[in-house]
């Protein structure tokens, strides 16, 4: 949905922030060189704000760039980007006060199935375009159709499917590198002392990589889909993400990145944490 009105408001806001010296750089999107792909853009001169776009190609989660940005920055976010920012703030990776957040409703014409957070949950200014703002606290019990379908398969079929998917992987780590929740300084996949997984694309190594990747973002994933879009080999990464979103939703009635005062359940120990994987559900006496 390219709404010229929304775009000109975004450009105007960006221009004003640079002009007033409130920020040194605006992180947004500019037109890309490949159809359907807009490209991250770092604008530091106000006259360049005209190159900003807000269209169907703006699918990448820009929150990733805040992690390495050292300048005082503004960032233009859609719903999922804003949720990643909430996570990064609550995980003490970035400081809210160092960031100016320009929010706008997700411009993707084919949005992610079941997405209920198209409008940012956190912003300094929201570019209003008449999109409905939902009460976000009600979505924790979300069901994912792909998981529900997958769960109907036999164990053999599920194994065959997962093996088939991860065997396509070429271990380029694009899924990890585009993911705002993946910010470990040293990733297990490349650790050498000790080495956690082999460097081959043998099914064993690939499987371990994908399972650990998914588990590491469990309870933190905002289902932005950047990982899957980045994957050149078409690995269905979101299936595992969705499964874990459902698990975290049903165990903790929680979905990440919705509230600035969130307590991430898998980052926090509570005496009465559900532990269904323990004998007798790990009940506390």
């Amino acid at each position, binding site marked *: 949905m390219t709404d010229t009105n929304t775009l000109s408001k975004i450009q105007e806001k960006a221009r004003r922030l640079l002009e007033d010296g409130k920020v040194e750089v605006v992180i947004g999107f500019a037109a890309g060189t490949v159809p359907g792909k807009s490209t991250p853009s770092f604008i530091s001169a106000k006259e360049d704000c005209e190159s900003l776009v807000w269209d169907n190609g703006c699918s990448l989660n820009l929150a990733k760039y805040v992690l390495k940005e050292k300048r005082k920055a503004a960032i233009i976010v859609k719903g999922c980007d804003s949720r990643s920012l909430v996570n990064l703030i609550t995980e003490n990776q970035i400081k809210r006060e160092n960031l100016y957040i320009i929010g706008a409703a997700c411009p993707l014409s084919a949005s992610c199935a079941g997405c209920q957070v198209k409008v940012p949950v956190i912003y300094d200014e929201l570019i209003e375009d008449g999109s409905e703002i939902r009460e976000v606290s009600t979505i924790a019990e979300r069901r994912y159709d792909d998981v529900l379908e997958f769960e109907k398969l036999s164990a053999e079929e599920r194994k065959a499917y997962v093996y088939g998917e991860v065997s396509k992987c070429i271990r380029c780590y694009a899924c990890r590198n585009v993911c705002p929740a993946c910010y470990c300084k040293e990733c297990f996949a490349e650790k*050498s*002392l*000790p*080495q956690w997984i082999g460097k081959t694309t043998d099914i064993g190594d690939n499987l371990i990589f994908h399972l650990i990747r998914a588990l590491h973002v469990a309870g933190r994933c905002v289902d932005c889909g950047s990982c899957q879009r980045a994957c050149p080999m078409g690995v269905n990464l979101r299936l595992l993400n969705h499964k874990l979103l459902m698990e975290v939703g049903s165990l903790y009635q929680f979905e990440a990145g919705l509230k600035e005062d969130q307590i991430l359940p898998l980052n926090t120990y509570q005496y009465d944490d559900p532990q269904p994987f323990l004998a007798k559900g790990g009940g506390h006496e």
Partner: protein
Amino acid sequence: MTCSCESGHNHNQVNPYVPYRMKIKDVIIENPEKDLKTFILNFLNPEEEKSFTYIPGQFAEVSVFGVGEAPFGIASSPTEKGVVSFTVKKLGQVTSSLHMLEKGDVIGLRGPLGNSWPIEKLVNKNLVIISGGFAFTTLRSFLYYALDPENRKLFKNITVVYGARNPDQLLYKAELSEWSKRDDLDLKLTIDRGVEGWNGIVGFVPAVTEQVVKEASNTVALVCGPPVMIKFTIPVLKKIGFTPDDIYTSLEMKMKCGIGMCGRCNIGSKFVCKDGPVFSLKELEELPAEY
């Protein structure tokens, strides 16, 4: 194809990835922290020993089977028959595993690899050898080679400035003590800060170099040490009158294949494994400072 190593052919001619099998003859602990050890190795297959010829300054890929490979400068001299040795600082995965091995254990060796100290260029020259810490290894190889009765006459005056943080961190202490008695070698050992029991020179290598080395004519300098030592020694040498053509150093980079294919040890268009590790300062000045 089953390997025919029992029949004694030299693998390296055929397949540069197949290592020689080496038996650890001895392990010498070089410092009280025990994180510097010298491994003295024998060839398991005597036939392979004959085909292994090297020049001081070259390196080899040493492997702990089941753990991995890493490159080390060869610390022994070609004039020491029957052994190849390496001095290894415990740092990463391979070096830590190496440090757990003992006499009798078998490790792998691929090499010799890379170029060497420019021996031909050094003939009939005065030599200034400058080193710091555990980077002394391939210079020790060269010194041992140059001090061989057959070779000593090839070179004129040899001055050595070798420094370490403290006396304990100097490598090859027994040998240094022998060498200090020789009158055909001017050996200057120095430590960074004075300690009790040390009667020698105190001071950083560049400063000591400035005091000791007075003459650059007909002289070549071989420098090998930590980056900061090299950084401050080069200007001193230039001040004394050395040209970039007469200063040589040996570089360290992360390496895997050692034969110019795997692509990680390049500095500009040069591969440290294939075109180095020894470069003249002149060559280095033409390369980007990315090392």
